[in-house]
């Protein structure tokens, strides 16, 4: 055991190995390390996309009292590999009337947009992150907003009506939900006071709290909008199989199709990783820093990676859970949820958070109450300040519920009973003469 721990004692295991290969520190830091990290992340995500199908099939099977894949390997564990081989060897079809160039490039745009984002994801401290840029959050939002184009172009270039309808739907849906997704993040940013993703995690570590306690409403809005952005059930209208065959990727087959598939699962990780970073404290875990202080830096980073992945997996499970328990929304319901529920709630969240931060700052020093520890690196609060802030966060949920029901009290979109049209026949002789009341009456 002592020998095992000694392995983690130097600040960086792989660095030591590389230095023995007589490489200069600059080469190691700026060339070798990034390539190792990029390779690890890309491999991990490709593997995830493979095994996510297995996970999804198993979870759906257990929810429906079935067994799921059981044939290939023990408990069907090799099923994804068999699927991958099948996809790789399939014929790559292209419709005759399809636009050759755009049809060829659309899957690559999709997969690139989904993968580039991982360059700034803070999977862990120190060497657990590929790069940390000071506009990290904006970078993620901007790259994923370009990813929509791939779906639209794929839908258009296929020259098929199902694909076109899927592409149109996905663009309308993603534009609608991007707005509330971006606005939901602002609440968390008010506490972190930085756009750097590593900086947001550190701000939560310094304040010793996860922002989910300050921002429960923000997390809910972010997750709903994120699932809608990913075109996952119950928001999977762009690929609704019961009406559009497969939506925007109807005409794709083989490897080209699996690129879209991989992009979708990578985008799921992006949303989960963003939610983890912003609301669940990222790689930060109570008392884990003691390992670092004891001198086992590499072990600390590895454990932090595990913590981050564990938090992410919980959120990914929510994706599967929702997919197999919720029916798909109708298109008008989807639009109403985006514009009439999520958007007002996100705006309310901004106003409430601003008010809460202002109140806590104003209360500092009132009757000897001390709420703020420091404001230099994010908002650091004392326990009194935290209690007030958490109370504001929980109150926000109720205020949002009240406001949304006030806005939508006449809405019938989710009220199936009211959607029934009242047309019933009465026997002609006994009826009263029709009197259409003038609009001024009643």
């Amino acid at each position, binding site marked *: 055991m002592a020998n095992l721990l000694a392995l983690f004692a130097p600040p960086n295991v792989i660095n030591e190995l590389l230095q023995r290969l007589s490489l200069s520190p600059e080469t190691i830091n700026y060339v070798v390390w990034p390539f190792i990290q990029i390779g690890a992340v890309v491999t991990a995500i490709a593997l995830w996309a493979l095994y996510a199908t297995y996970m999804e099939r198993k979870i759906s099977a257990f929810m429906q009292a079935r067994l799921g894949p059981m044939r290939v390997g023990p408990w069907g564990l090799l099923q994804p590999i068999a699927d991958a081989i099948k996809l790789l060897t399939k014929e790559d079809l292209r419709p005759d009337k399809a636009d050759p160039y755009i049809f060829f490039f659309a899957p690559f745009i999709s997969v690139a947009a989904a993968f580039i984002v991982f360059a700034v994801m803070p999977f862990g401290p120190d060497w657990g992150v590929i790069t940390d840029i000071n506009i990290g959050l904006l970078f993620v939002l901007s790259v994923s907003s370009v990813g929509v184009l791939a779906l639209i172009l794929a839908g258009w270039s296929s020259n098929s009506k199902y694909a076109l309808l899927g592409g149109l739907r996905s663009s*309308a849906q993603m534009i609608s939900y991007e707005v509330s997704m971006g606005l939901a993040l602002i609440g968390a940013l008010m506490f972190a006071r930085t756009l750097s993703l590593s900086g947001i995690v550190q701000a939560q570590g310094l304040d010793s709290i996860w922002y989910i306690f300050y921002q429960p409403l923000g997390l809910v809005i972010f997750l709903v909008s994120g699932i809608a952005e990913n075109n996952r059930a119950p928001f999977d209208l762009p690929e609704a199989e019961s009406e559009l065959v497969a939506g925007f990727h109807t005409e794709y087959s083989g490897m080209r199709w699996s690129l879209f598939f991989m992009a979708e699962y990578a985008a799921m990780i992006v949303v989960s990783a963003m939610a983890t970073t912003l609301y669940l404290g990222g790689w930060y875990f109570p008392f884990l820093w003691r390992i670092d202080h004891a001198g086992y830096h590499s072990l600390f980073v590895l454990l932090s990676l595990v913590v981050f992945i564990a938090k992410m997996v919980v959120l990914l499970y929510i994706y599967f859970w929702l997919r197999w328990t919720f029916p798909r929304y109708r298109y008008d319901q989807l639009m109403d949820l985006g514009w009439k529920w999520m958007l007002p709630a996100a705006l309310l969240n901004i106003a409430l958070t601003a008010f809460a931060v202002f109140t806590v700052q104003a209360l500092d020093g009132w009757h000897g109450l001390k709420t703020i520890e420091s404001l230099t690196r994010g908002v650091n609060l004392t326990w009194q300040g935290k209690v007030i802030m958490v109370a504001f966060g929980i109150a926000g949920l109720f205020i949002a519920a009240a406001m949304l029901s006030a806005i939508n009290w006449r809405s019938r979109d989710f009220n199936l009973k009211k959607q029934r049209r*009242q047309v019933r026949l009465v026997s002609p002789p006994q009826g*009263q003469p029709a009197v259409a009341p003038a609009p001024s009456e009643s």
Partner: protein
Amino acid sequence: MSDILTFIVFILLAGLAIGSALAMVAQRNPLYSAISLIGVFGALAGLYLTLAAPFIAAVQIIVYAGAIMVLVVFVIMLLNVEEEVRRPVRLRYLVPTAVLLAAVLFAEAAFILFYVNDAPAPPSPLATAEPSTTGLTASIGTGLFTTYLLPFEITSILILMALVGAMTLARRTAARPQDLVVPGAQVLPLQMVEPARVGDDTPVRSDTTAEAARTLGLNEQEQTRE
């Protein structure tokens, strides 16, 4: 070393921007033009990055490449714009005008190229001790909400007006039966009779088919079509 690298990056990005812009104008297919325009925006964002303005670069991508171009592509797809056919130039006087305007543009560029050296040199960023914060998010935010608050708010009101205008134009009226009347007497919700009363369920009774049609404001021809 870093100067040469910066120069190479600049040449690459500028070349991409100009090439994409030319492709955008030259393409016959509107969708290809739109994609070329996205290339221009991406190259411009890269140029902003080399000028140490990361926030503007990110916003350039989010707003232009992400939102506006998606809408442009959306409209192109929705209207199903066909490839433009080559047709005889009817407005011949446009050609000399275009040449003239291009000449003015080139003269402007040449003027800048030749006279920019005469202007007093800006303080070198390397000379000052601390790095400049001009393009960073924090400094832009501070400027936007203090010095330029009034223009910022006026712009947002302008956008709000456009939003309200669009909503007024697109407002849905009450659901009305298209061209069909259920034969016989029936009870209809008031919102079907009176479009202004959206969401009103007050029952309105009508005894005969003709009466129902009259109540709903349908004319004879529509009524008889089955």
